[in-house]
């Protein structure tokens, strides 16, 4: 298990290297001169050239990338051209906000979606199931930002009971969390339902019924844990979506998170900030994926023994084979 974890962390290194290279290249070839942006229109050509030299912007692509990577390895993500503060500090400030929102949203999604999915599956075609599926369809089809705007319109403008922007206390979380969760609630509900439907038709569920166990025990102990693997996958994806996709929601609710910060940085050609921000998001996604892989092993002993045997991830093939 430890061996698997270490291997899995090592695999993340080339992925992150690829991300830095990709983002660096894209920004390198983007139009706009950071030196000119920093100094403004009034600066002379000599002043700009001097700053370019100072920032190392006149070096070749390779030199610039290597020196950037060298910094990253030391934990130095460069300097914000505009504020002059280290990028790592600025990103971390915003990251906590975004992470708080993402965690709150995903926890809220799980609390709503997993029970909803279970009930829909156990009472298939009942009124509860039909209502849940219609709501899930709506949740999937509504764009996040539209739902967010409608929430603001209703709760802040008409009713005036919830603050429309910022993030200064518990009540500020309500609408952004709903806005971010709507899609993931829908996806997780549907995944839980279909996975549960498959599991409750298995022979071992009949065995547990023949034991005379209560319906609650059968569903929670015997069925749910078996149904969780695809659900965990989806939760992981939804979490990375909540982090990476926070851009829109943070913009709508004027939340000082990583997403909004990145959008502003791109507009300002604030290269170092964009690179740092994207790298941090990529690291978070890698961590989430690792946690998900480890959770599989925690849920399913067959996967655990696979990890122990070969360290390779054969979960998809295995899950298919075992039905």
């Amino acid at each position, binding site marked *: 298990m430890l061996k698997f974890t270490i291997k899995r962390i090592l695999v993340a290194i080339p992925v992150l290297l690829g991300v830095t290279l990709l983002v660096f290249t894209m920004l390198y070839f983007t139009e706009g001169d950071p030196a000119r942006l920093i100094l403004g229109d009034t600066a002379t050509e000599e002043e700009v050239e001097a700053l370019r030299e100072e920032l190392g912007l006149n070096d070749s692509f390779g030199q610039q990338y290597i020196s950037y990577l060298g910094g990253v390895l030391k934990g130095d993500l460069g300097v914000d051209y505009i504020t002059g503060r280290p990028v790592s500090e600025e990103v971390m400030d915003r990251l906590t906000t975004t992470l708080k929102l993402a965690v709150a949203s995903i926890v809220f999604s799980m609390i709503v979606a997993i029970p909803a999915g279970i009930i829909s599956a156990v009472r298939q075609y009942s009124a509860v199931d039909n209502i849940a599926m219609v709501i899930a369809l709506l949740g999937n089809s509504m764009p996040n930002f539209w739902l967010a705007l409608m929430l603001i319109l209703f709760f802040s403008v008409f009713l005036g009971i919830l603050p429309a922007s910022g993030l200064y206390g518990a009540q500020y979380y309500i609408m952004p969390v709903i806005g971010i969760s709507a899609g993931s609630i829908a996806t997780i509900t549907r995944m839980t339902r279909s996975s549960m439907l498959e599991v409750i038709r298995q022979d*071992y569920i*009949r*065995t547990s019924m*023949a*034991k005379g166990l209560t319906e609650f025990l059968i569903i929670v*102990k*015997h069925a749910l844990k078996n149904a969780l693997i695809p659900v965990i996958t989806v939760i992981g994806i939804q979490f990375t979506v909540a982090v990476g996709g926070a851009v829109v929601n943070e913009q709508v609710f004027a939340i000082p998170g990583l997403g909004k910060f990145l959008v502003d940085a791109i507009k300002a050609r604030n290269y170092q900030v964009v690179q740092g921000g994207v790298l941090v998001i990529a690291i978070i996604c890698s961590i989430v994926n690792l946690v998900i892989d480890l959770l599989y092993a925690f849920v*399913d*002993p067959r996967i655990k023994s696979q990890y122990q045997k070969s360290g390779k991830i054969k979960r998809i093939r295995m899950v298919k084979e075992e039905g």
Partner: protein
Amino acid sequence: MNDKDKPLLSVRNLTIHYITDNGVVKAVNDISFDLAKGETMGLVGETGAGKTTTALGIMNLIPNPPGKIINGEILVDGKNILEFNKYQTRKYRGNVASMIFQDPMTALNPILTVGEQIAEVSRYHNKLSKAESYVKAAEMLELVGIPSERINEYPHQFSGGMKQRVVIAIALACNPQLLLADEPTTALDVTIQAQVLALMGDLIKKYGTSMVLITHDLGVVTEICDRVAIMYAGQIVETGDLEAVYEHTKHPYTKGLFGSLPRISDKTSRLNPIDGLMPDPTNLPNGCPFHPRCPDKMPECESRVPANTEIEPGHFVRCLLYE
């Protein structure tokens, strides 16, 4: 009739249908039989004869929908289990009656240890603590010939024969009065079959358990059963003790079954299988369901359903030849 002679299980006019989009599947049609305490009855028939449905009916585990018990009663210790409420049904399943399922590969929950799967039965029914139930589970494992050190292993770490032993341990965990074994050896190697059968024979003798052994193997019946019931198209066509049915075979279908067994003493090069196929259970023929394949067919057979006739004490036949 004193208490000792009273049958443990008494099935009266049981009729079970599956209502599907393609018609009504008449799986079990008006079957009746008794099973005394400590007695073992073989329920023999081709695939699709309604054997498993009968057993599921006795466990009150018919999947509804599409299955429905149309008529009849199932008396266990004089109480009609079909009239039990949810709570009584749970107390009955696993405790009074338990079932061994056909396919040990799928009958065990892949993500729970075998120990837990055995322990939970006695924990639930006998109100044992977790530790006590594990002690009991370890005893059960030893009883079925698995070293108790393996109590914390998962089903995928066991071979097919071992899994079936675990299934047997689960079924016997609460020392039930009635055991329904649905082709317990069909999925196993021939060598393992003999071991598992011998084990079951020993255990039911030891605990005085009554058993209905479902099989399509007439040889297995002679090894372990006191009585045999031959099923065809959802009906019991012939029933009696081993000697009566094996030596004084009456029903043409039973004769056909014996005719299709290879005998080492006969020098004939070909077997004599029964002509034709089992009728479609959604569209059973009028009269005796066996008449289209019967070598002794009379004109009357096409219109009149034969009644259950006792031709010698304890030997019943459903055939117009003997009415």
